[in-house]
């Protein structure tokens, strides 16, 4: 079985949202993904990292966001982790159009995007400890 792993850490600055999605996309390129698969991954990673920055660290810019990605044969697992405020009510947070910050002009679609564009999404969160998202996607493309 083929396997591989990568890990990156960066400050919770919004400038790093594009870095994060491109880094994961670059790692995934070894699976010869389709353009659509790559876009799915980039969009889901962008949503997760944005959540950590806005909600987890409340825009403090001093937090650390960690990303770990694993490849096992055709399956990608991406783990995105912060040590921020945590999510009060995960079920509510995951509802389409719900946002805890209506003042920020957010659409409340972040979790819906992750859920739709990835094959599997698990959310673990603890108040004042942080949040950990585990997303999986199986690549259909031939390599």
């Amino acid at each position, binding site marked *: 079985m083929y396997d591989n792993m990568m890990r990156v850490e960066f400050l919770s600055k*919004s400038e790093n949202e594009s870095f994060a999605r491109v880094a994961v996309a670059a790692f995934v390129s070894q699976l010869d993904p389709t353009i659509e698969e790559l876009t799915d991954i980039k969009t889901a990673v962008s949503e997760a990292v944005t959540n950590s920055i806005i909600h987890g660290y409340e825009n403090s810019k001093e937090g650390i966001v960690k990303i770990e990605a694993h490849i096992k044969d055709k399956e990608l697992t991406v783990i995105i982790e912060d040590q921020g405020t945590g999510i009060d009510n995960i079920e509510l947070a995951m509802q389409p159009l719900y946002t805890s910050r209506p003042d920020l002009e957010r659409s409340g679609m972040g979790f819906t995007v992750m859920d739709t564009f990835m094959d599997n999404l698990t959310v673990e969160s603890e108040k004042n400890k942080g949040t950990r998202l585990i997303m999986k996607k199986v690549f259909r493309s031939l390599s």
Partner: protein
Amino acid sequence: MYLEFENKDDKLIVYMSGELDHHSAEEVRNKIDDRLDRDNIVKLIMDFSSVTFMDSSGIGVVIGRYKKLNLKKGCICIAKVRNSVKRVFELSGMFKIIKLYDNIDEAVENI
């Protein structure tokens, strides 16, 4: 993100290019709102043809402008959206309230 503006009749067209995420959204929002307020325009057309990536922050930007213009009895539409970006918009059901056009001329005529 790079923005270019064009006034056509009583409408403002904004041509956007680059990646629209949470980081770039603030700048996009501020620049468009400044322009709308400065020239007192209530009809906005957003050209997405050169937007190469967008996450749900883009939905927030469009719905935000919709709400702002709706209060002033104005309107907004979007044009020339590539498929990858369209898929994100579609999740929100936004096309029920905001029209999508294939080209700018059509948007200008109908808005």
